[in-house]
């Protein structure tokens, strides 16, 4: 399976929201909720900010913070590039929501038994059958297109090279959070469009793994140390008790 990705060129988006509607259609999400905001029932949104239409969805990070955060492996980065979710495994701790640097996973706050809701790149309905996601196939202008990640990066580089005045020289998602499967081009600096500005260029899971990977050492060293201390102290007390005069 090739590593699929999405390139969204904000300069070509007319804000028709066809992507957002197509997403609701295929994922059978409630249609009565606003399309400009990511919520449990809107996995793909179109925000209108400073005269720019900004498509929002899960970034499908190369090394997702949510996947590393989930204690029960309910979130998974598939070989296809999609970050998918298994509600059956989820226990509802919401650590993925805390961990995601793009604040993508949403929750069903109005349900007795809520689940996490987010874009899964149409993994079941399209991707795993070799088709393209509903959003990109619905776009009338070709502002958001589906393809192989490396090819889309080349395409984005070509567009910037061909029209250097029309774009800021930045492919958002190329390096952000260690690289994402959803890439953006824009005429306006991304920080002005509500994209997280101080996002790390390195993958987020590395931060916690740096700590977690030390655990085996802590356990073995700590165990030996504690046992040693106990043995030494206990022996000294015993010796004292046996030969009180010799001390």
């Amino acid at each position, binding site marked *: 399976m090739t590593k699929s990705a999405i390139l969204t060129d904000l*300069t*070509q988006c*007319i*804000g028709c*929201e*066809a992507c957002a509607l197509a997403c609701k259609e295929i994922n059978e999400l409630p249609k009565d909720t*606003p399309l400009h*905001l*990511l*919520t*449990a029932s809107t996995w793909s949104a179109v925000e*209108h900010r400073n005269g720019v239409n900004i498509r929002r969805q899960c970034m499908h990070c190369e090394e997702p913070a949510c996947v*590393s*955060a989930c*204690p*029960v*492996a*309910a979130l998974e980065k598939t070989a296809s590039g999609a970050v998918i979710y298994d509600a059956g*495994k*989820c*226990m*509802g*701790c*919401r*650590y993925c*929501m*805390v961990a995601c*640097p793009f604040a993508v996973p*949403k*929750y069903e*706050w*109005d*349900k*007795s*038994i*809520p*689940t996490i809701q987010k874009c899964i790149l149409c993994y079941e309905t399209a991707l795993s059958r070799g088709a393209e996601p509903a959003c990109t196939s619905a776009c*009338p*202008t*070709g502002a958001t297109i589906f393809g192989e990640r490396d090819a889309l990066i080349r395409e984005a580089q070509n567009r910037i090279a061909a029209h250097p005045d*029309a774009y800021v020289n930045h492919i958002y998602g190329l390096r952000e959070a260690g690289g994402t499967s959803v890439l953006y081009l824009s005429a306006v600096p991304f920080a002005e469009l509500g994209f*997280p500005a*101080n*996002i*790390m260029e390195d993958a987020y*899971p590395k*931060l*916690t793994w*740096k*700590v*977690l990977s030390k*655990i085996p050492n*802590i356990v073995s060293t*700590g*165990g030996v140390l*504690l046992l040693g201390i*106990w043995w030494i*102290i*206990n022996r000294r*007390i015993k010796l004292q008790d046996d030969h009180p005069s010799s001390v």
Partner: protein
Amino acid sequence: MKLSLPKPTFWTIVLAFIWILGIYAVFTRFYYGLGAATNLSDQFPWGIWIGFDILVGVGLAAGGFVVAATVYIFNLKTYKPIARSTILTAFLGYLLVIGALMIDLGKPYNVWHPLIMWNHHSVMFEVGWCVMLYTTVLFLEFLPVLFERFRLERPLRIIRSITVPLVIVGVLLSTLHQSSLGTLYVIVPDKLHPLWYSGLLPLYFFISAIAAGLAMVIFESYLSARAFGKELEFSLLAQLSRIIVLVLGLYLMVRVQDMSSRGALQYVFDGSQESLYFLLEVGLGVLLPIILFLTPKIRNNTAGLFLGAVFTLLGFVMHRLNVAITGMTRSAGVEYVPTWMELAVTASIVAAGIVIFRYAAKYLPIFSQEEAFGVHPPPLVSAGKSGRLAMGLLGVLLLAILIGLGFGWMQEKPVDLHLRIESAVAQPASTLELPLPIVYEMGEASPGAVTFSHENHIDPSAPQCKTCHSGIFKMRPLKAGALGSVQMDLLYEKKQCGICHNGDDAFNVEDNCEVCHVAIDE
């Protein structure tokens, strides 16, 4: 059996009131969902139930492993008299934390999933495992008390023979997950305010938990001594206060050093809300107890020790809440203030902890193990009316959860939460800007100019852009590309406009020239 209520003293009334509110809140959470009971949102997914019930609850139970290590590994037997009550506190603490977690979790019945669904890259996975294992260890450490109470000699001997390995495992597990609660936040460098974010968060959580655990020992010994008229092991507690000073001093030193190396000191006095909370936390909760414990006049009396312990605990609570709530507010973009229901649940849990501890202290050999209860242990059946009331309320709580879950799950409820979300992020709805009318260049044989109007072709409330774009007609990307041409020959072949203008879907192009071609001379 005649049901009679316990004497309505001030405290039983307060307690009953808190629990009734708490039970109502738990019911609301399970019936209407987390959004109805809490102020949590997509922007702020963790609130006071995580910040206080879990982060603080686990930390306050840290006295258990510190004292157990002191007594059984470092062999400082002088501390033995307080070992049991601290281990009981820790055990109760963990049970309550797990209880609180059940209310906060979206799917509490899946809480056992980390047992079989592994993700060793997850901090939460590690925390879950450690809490499960350590609660078991605490139970085993607590067992001798029960065995003594019921005079079970053989099991008592067995459990005593494994005390040391048990304590070592307990210390390791505690070290791991006290620090791991801090590690949880290591993955949010750009969400947590720099006054609190650090790669050393695990270390801070660990050190401050030791200070808080020891302060908890003083706090509790003082209160139980008053409540049960028992002798306070004053010299022991005074020694503990000296250790607390050392621990807090180390904690403060590492934190300041680390903040200066991260360039975070500039935020300390910048007058923001965060700086205020930070100064309160460090001033009242770290510096003040150090000063109190170092002042001989205060250190040398029980009330002074108690005061120092209270401020140490306050500083600890503030640190956890600052990490979980204050420090996360700015990046979330919404102000999180817990609802009364969230507070009621938290208060109920704290109250439950106090009540259970009181009963345990009254009926189990906890405070002085040498002369457990002499010849006649107090009869358990005399748990009394208040005991029955407590059990009754526990039953009501379980019922509330079951009914809430049962009915809440089955029924669809129109709770208007989306309105709240919308107002939080007010934004104009989409305004689709239709392109200007397009005037086509006339060909040689054209009978008149053609102007295409989007307005006449679509319903703006449901624009089916996809019908024509980009399959039939290319759009003009970047406002630079040339307009494609429309040719009558193609139209007659049912292409371009002819696809729809075929006589069936829309008027036929063949005999309606004048509809589109506006004659110039006529």
